[in-house]
């Protein structure tokens, strides 16, 4: 008891000393955003207020409980979990296995089926290339969709160059795939179907259970990129008949640089490993498992499981509030993606007659994005929006709002107010809007060249 009082006093005094290092901390503030050239990247001034974070699909802040779980393994328990001969190794291994169980419990799997990786991109690469190459002799066809993450599409492109046949299924206007089309395209030569659970740009939730049953009945492996879905909607790999699942740490309030791949054991899924070496992680992914990161990842998964219902309820309420307020104040706003089959925390709105870039620049107090972070370097509109058949001009004026565990009502209200204000202002300045107000149908105009 006495020791606790003394140590807490020491800690308090340490905090006072450390806060004088504020200037040092400023250099740690790095708000470089990977946006297009028009929005110049610059660091925040010392007195400038920080923008609100509404981009939870790009990444999430770490939950304080996760950081608390990770720190002992960064400071004192730094052993290599694969060292078999001393306490440092044993305690590290125990922590790693505990984290594995926490991840497995979240998705309803067995701990032996979890392989730790460096993130969902690596997991996607491993599963798609690994399954395709292993079963190359008899099966050389892969099916995926047009709205997948870039890493899935790029892996498929590489496989095409190796001689595989890849089908990119189109999606309907609401972002969902057509099950009939999928059924028709599955052939005896198909080794893998890869469809993401929740899309990171429009938030649409695919009918994974139906797809899983379909694939199982046709004896085809089913991989799903569940990076945006894990910890946000209830997942059970056995109910859904999923054979491979990619999980990302930094999308569920965990650390960046860690993820996992679920590889089913019964019926066994064989993969050709991408990373060879000492045989760690069942030979599928050699390399020292980063104990602090996986401990944080495991803690994040456990917290997500406990808080799933609470967070989901809250996010739904906040999302409805945002959409209702915006749609009731300004006309000509389109929500991309199916209104029912979605994860509420990812809202993609297209504001007609307003350019997306200018709206983002105007909303400089809020951290938003107009597409996924990995495609925002190019000037093209997002391929996902093009795949769901959005008009070219609507695709250019879309903004993605992300709501997460830490979003408050004040943040949503502030965002909504600013958004409405800026959209109205930009529309006042737009000649197209003027023409629409006069009743001219823009599509009927024949634009001439000068």
């Amino acid at each position, binding site marked *: 008891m006495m020791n606790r009082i003394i140590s*807490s006093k020491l*800690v*308090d005094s*340490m*905090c006072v000393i*450390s*806060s004088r*290092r*504020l200037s040092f*901390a*400023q250099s*740690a*503030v790095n708000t470089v955003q990977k946006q297009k050239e028009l929005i110049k990247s610059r660091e*925040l001034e*010392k*007195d*400038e*207020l*920080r*923008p*609100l*974070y509404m981009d939870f699909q790009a990444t999430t*802040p770490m939950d*304080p*409980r996760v*950081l*608390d779980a990770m720190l002992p393994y960064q400071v004192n328990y730094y052993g290599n979990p694969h060292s078999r001969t001393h306490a440092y190794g044993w305690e590290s291994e125990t922590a790693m296995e505990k984290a594995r169980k926490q991840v497995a419990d979240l998705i309803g799997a067995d701990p032996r089926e979890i392989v730790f990786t460096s993130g969902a991109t690596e997991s996607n690469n491993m599963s798609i290339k690994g399954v395709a190459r292993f079963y190359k002799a008899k099966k050389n066809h892969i099916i995926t969709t047009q709205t997948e993450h870039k890493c899935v599409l790029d892996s498929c492109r590489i496989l095409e160059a190796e001689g595989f046949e890849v089908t990119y299924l189109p999606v309907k206007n609401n972002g969902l795939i057509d099950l009939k089309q999928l059924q028709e395209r599955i052939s005896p030569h198909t080794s893998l179907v890869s469809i993401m659970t929740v899309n990171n740009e429009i938030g649409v939730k695919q009918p994974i259970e139906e797809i899983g049953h379909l694939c199982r009945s046709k004896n085809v492996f089913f991989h799903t990129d569940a990076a945006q879905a894990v910890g946000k909607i209830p997942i059970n790999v056995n109910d859904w008949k999923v054979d491979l699942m990619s999980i990302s740490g930094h999308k569920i309030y965990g650390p960046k640089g860690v993820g996992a791949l679920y590889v089913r054991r019964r019926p066994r899924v064989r993969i050709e490993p991408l990373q060879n070496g000492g045989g760690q992680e069942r030979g599928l992914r050699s390399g020292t498992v980063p104990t602090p990161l996986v401990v944080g990842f495991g803690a994040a998964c456990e917290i997500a499981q406990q808080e799933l219902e*609470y967070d989901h309820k809250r996010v739904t309420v906040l999302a409805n509030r945002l959409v209702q307020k915006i749609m009731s104040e300004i006309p000509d706003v389109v929500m991309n993606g199916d209104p029912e089959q979605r994860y509420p925390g990812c809202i993609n709105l297209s504001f007609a007659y307003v350019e997306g870039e200018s709206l983002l620049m105007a909303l400089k*107090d809020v951290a938003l994005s107009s597409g996924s972070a990995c495609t925002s370097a190019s000037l093209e509109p997002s391929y996902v929006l093009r795949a769901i058949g959005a008009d070219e001009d609507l695709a250019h004026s879309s903004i993605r709002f992300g709501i997460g*565990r*830490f*979003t*408050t009502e*004040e*943040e949503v209200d*502030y965002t909504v107010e600013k958004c409405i204000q800026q959209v109205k202002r930009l529309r006042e300045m737009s000649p197209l809007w003027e023409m629409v107000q006069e009743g001219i149908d823009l599509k009927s105009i024949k634009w001439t060249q000068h």
Partner: protein
Amino acid sequence: MAASSREHVLSLYRLLLKESKKFPSYNYRTYALRRVRDAFRENRTVEDPKDVEELLRRARDSLALIQRQVCIGKMFETQKTVVEQEEQKSD
């Protein structure tokens, strides 16, 4: 017995709120305050002494966690968010 345990619960609740208010980060602060309030409200009607003991143990662990994380937050403090400015103005 019941009276003192009620006092105990209330004092833990007050301590948790007091510590949570110290978070320098707006998002963490509002989350901690909200979550503590909602958790205590949700478990208001729990009767079984074993469950109560378990919940109180979790509350005590959370208190220690919040204290540590508040300290770390203070070490790496940064600028305030736009919404906090409005909060301060209205105070």
